[in-house]
């Protein structure tokens, strides 16, 4: 019995990290009340780190992810409208990342079946930067990026 226990532990070891990450709420669609905040993912500073914290591999660039009603030049970095749509089948979640913000990850949205993989929100940007839309579809990660220039306090246009 003991030997078997060890075996199970050994086999289990490899998957534990992934399972934990899944349990952390990002991979599984968050339950209404039991949803937890993925602290590690929100403290990352690069795309690689974020991907690690989210439990995914390197994302594949995709043309099926589009930014909608997102400006090229944002006059006010405190309020930058961002809209993301994905035409990838089985889109499970959409994340918005800002490369030059103190912490890269801005928001993660879980998209349950029946909800359109299209949403818009407003984020803050410290300075001009690339913004990434990271989409998880059918278990794989895809990414699209857009450069947004921030002209704080200037007369826009």
């Amino acid at each position, binding site marked *: 019995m003991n030997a078997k226990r060890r075996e199970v532990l050994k086999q289990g070891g490899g998957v534990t990290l992934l399972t934990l990450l899944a349990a952390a*709420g*990002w991979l599984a*669609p*968050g*339950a*209404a*009340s039991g*949803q*937890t*905040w*993925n602290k590690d*993912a*929100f403290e990352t500073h690069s795309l690689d780190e974020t991907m690690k914290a989210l439990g995914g591999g390197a994302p594949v660039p995709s043309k099926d992810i589009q930014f909608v009603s997102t400006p090229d030049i944002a006059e006010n970095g*405190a*309020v*930058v*409208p961002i*809209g993301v749509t994905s035409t990838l089948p089985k889109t499970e979640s959409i994340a918005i990342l*800002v490369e030059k*913000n*103190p*912490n890269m*990850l*801005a*928001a*993660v*949205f*879980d*998209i*349950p079946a*029946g*909800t*359109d993989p*299209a*949403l*818009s*929100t*407003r*984020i*803050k*940007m410290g300075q001009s930067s690339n913004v990434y839309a990271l989409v998880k579809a059918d278990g794989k990660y895809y990414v699209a990026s857009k450069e947004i220039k921030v002209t704080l306090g200037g007369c826009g246009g």
Partner: protein
Amino acid sequence: MADPMKIRANVVGDSTEVKVLMNHEMETGQRKDAQGKTIPAWFIQTVTATHNGKTVLAAQWGPAVAKNPFLAFKFKGGAKGDKVQITWTDSKGDKRTDEATIA
């Protein structure tokens, strides 16, 4: 208790479009006050939207979401008169739930 959210839900074709405007400081923890002291972070961490008890959107936010956050999304189904419920929880553990009727 925080101020109520503004929620609008409209039937568009075969789906329901939901627009939410929340009232929240969304303090990043990066800013300093006049005395040079850091203002502690205070922001919405999780947002859940449900329709007839079914989750239609679950989000996790960082402090990089703008003050008084705006959120728009669409889900399939939903009829006039149905209720859409939005709940958020912030980093201080505060919670707020508001409800809107689909028009």
